[in-house]
């Protein structure tokens, strides 16, 4: 989805980028762009470095020609789009990055400023096979569906629900061919759209399945807050009145009660999984996997990293913090500046 070949989001006809309306169906045209990480090693720029295992510098089909190890993906991938910063890092303990993130923008016709934003962050469930395939597929499918809905001027809530539906299908399809559905790839999913309203405010809509989170960090004095509710045993206990610092809650912190793909329910979300806030404040929306919030669970903790700096610097600082704190899991983060951008 580059800006080069533009098709009408309504009817699929190829259109002239300068046109404001589709010649074919008359729909308003907008440009849609999307990026996703982590990218495959072969898609990244630059020559292959020496094999990390044996020092040999030649690869065939991405395998070292001497020791046979698969060429390692870089530990961290970062992409920026329309002011949004995505970073995904393998962390220190896991051998493979099974997180993924995608972000896209709907621009007005003829290169106007971004009109709407859609972002998704996924965490592959590492007890499933090839979890990274589910995370990758779900994040991209979710963002694509949200962008289609937003470009068609549908409501943000409907876009987030469309994203959840397509992400669920994509995660389930990632397991096609698996012998045993109980180990089919599965992942978490947290999505957000940011859309301006005619009143000059911004509407932030979030939806999630699993324990990846979205934090809204407005400029002070407005309070920082977590917009999502985890689908975890810990959260269920807390909702039921068990103290957050109790042993039972601690033990259930990472036990998911809902997920996408694998043997998940067909629609593992409820209407209440989607939530909208409308704000006139500027600030940052931070989306992340538990690789980050394990070390920074409180919204205020994360807010400190975002105050008075740009999105890229904040995102880097947050990921670096998680690594310094142990980096026990993959760390993926999206930082979306709100206010200045829209």
């Amino acid at each position, binding site marked *: 989805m580059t800006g080069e070949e533009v098709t009408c989001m309504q009817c699929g006809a190829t259109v002239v980028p300068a046109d404001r309306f589709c010649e074919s169906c008359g729909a308003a045209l907008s440009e849609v762009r999307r990026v996703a990480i982590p990218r495959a090693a072969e898609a990244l720029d630059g020559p292959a470095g020496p094999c990390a295992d044996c020092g040999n510098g030649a690869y065939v089909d991405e*395998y*070292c020609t001497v020791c*046979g*190890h698969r060429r390692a993906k870089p530990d961290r991938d970062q992409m920026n789009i329309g002011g949004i910063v995505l970073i995904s890092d393998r962390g220190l303990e896991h051998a493979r990055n099974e997180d993924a993130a995608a972000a896209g923008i709907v621009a007005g016709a003829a290169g106007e400023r971004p009109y709407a934003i859609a972002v998704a962050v996924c965490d592959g469930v590492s007890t499933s096979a090839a979890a990274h395939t589910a995370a990758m597929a779900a994040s991209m499918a979710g963002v694509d569906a949200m962008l289609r809905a937003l470009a068609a001027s549908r409501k943000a809530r409907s876009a987030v629900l469309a994203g959840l539906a397509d992400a669920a299908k994509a995660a389930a399809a990632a397991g096609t061919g698996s012998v045993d559905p109980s180990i089919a790839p599965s992942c978490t999913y947290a999505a957000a759209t940011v859309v301006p309203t005619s009143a000059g405010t911004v509407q932030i809509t979030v939806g999630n399945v699993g324990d990846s989170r979205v934090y809204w960090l407005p400029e002070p004095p407005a309070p920082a807050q977590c917009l999502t509710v985890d689908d975890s045993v810990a959260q269920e206990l807390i909702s039921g009145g068990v103290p957050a610092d109790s042993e039972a809650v601690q033990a259930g912190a990472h036990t998911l009660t809902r997920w996408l793909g694998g043997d998940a329910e067909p629609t593992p979300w409820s209407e209440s999984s989607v939530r909208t806030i409308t704000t006139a404040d500027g600030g940052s929306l931070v989306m992340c996997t538990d690789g980050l919030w394990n070390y920074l669970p409180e919204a205020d903790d994360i807010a400190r990293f975002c105050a008075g700096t740009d999105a890229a610097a904040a995102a880097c600082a947050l990921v670096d913090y998680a690594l310094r704190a142990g980096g026990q899991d993959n760390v993926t983060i999206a930082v979306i500046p709100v206010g200045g951008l829209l």
Partner: protein
Amino acid sequence: MSSIEEQSVSSIAVDVDHNPYLAEGAGTVDAIVSIAVGSEMAATDEPPERVEAIIVDCSTSMLSPHGKFDEAKRATTAAVNEIADGAYFTIAAGTDKAVPVYPADGRPTQASEATRAAAARAVDGLQPKGGTAMGTWLAHVRRIARQHPGALTHAILLTDGKDEHETPEQLGEEIGLSEGEFTCDCRGVGTDWHVEELRAISSALLGTVDIVADPADLADDFAAMMRASMGKSIPDLTLRLWTPAGARVAFVKQVAPTVEDLTHRRVDAGNQCGEYPLGPWGAEERDYHIQVAVEPAAAGREKLAARVTVVAGDESLGEGLVKAMWTTDTALSARISRRVAHYTGQAELAQAVQDGLAARKNGDVATATAKLRRAMELAVESGNDGTAKLLRGVIEVDERTGTARLRRDVAAADEMALDARSTRTARVRKEA
């Protein structure tokens, strides 16, 4: 979980079927590699030069029982009639030496209506007289093969007795010298020959071995062998196996259509590669079981355990990758590919039959019973009906109690058929 990779270049398909997941610390990778040559690939515009050599046993024993030699002559003519026009052929009488029958000077001539008729007349005039020295027969074909470098040279060898007029060492040496020079299908008529002897020849020379108990069946069998040979159009394929540094190739076995251990045929090709000659091919599919021991890597890492390339001359015609991925998930690493399991069983079956029959010959009833009973189990389990049927001729297994008993009166022909056909495997469907 199994993975199937298929890459097809010039219609040679190389399939890899295995469980790529390994537990931490494990390093043994088993894969079934299927190589299939398509009919378009096999049907070349310019057929390669072919040389067919038929060696008919003309030892004195061929005179009895009455009619056996006539059937051998009829079979030779039947085979000659299947030779395509333009292919070179020659017929020799095998005794304690090999004597040209047709053409008289021993130099192969091109098949035509006239030469086939002349060959039939020459064969008709043959008289058995002499001994048996199969090594000299192989040497005769080898000399011919060397006069036709690059040709598809194939021999049919018929005997009715064991190799008597040379030492086993002499025969072994001739077999070794003939490897890679030509291919050879061996047939034993009657029951006075040794399966082990003919198998040594056919195995080394990439051919088949079988018993033809009734001489009357020789003609059909010879015609079928020659038709199969005419179906081979690619003179030589080679399996090139790349393995990572520090890896060891435990074995490379053909497992379908028959079990044939190729491990010792490896020719080092440098760059961590070894080459295994596969012989001539037609439009056909063969399966190979490859086991490689690699250095284990940490959970989450992936390594290429082997790269299998099918090569003709310097040209690479197909390739398959055998990958290994380490995981802490035992549900993944504990799986065994269905085809790896099946062919492991088929190889064990062939060995159990051969060991059981050898023990039986040596009078070791306990070992023979145990081995053949195990063979029966494997044959029935895996659906190898051919071998199961032959096994019932030598061992009785009570289906209810599982008690096994060797049959007292076993026809020599049944026992030899079981032995000769022990390496034939049942195929198993590929996992889609």
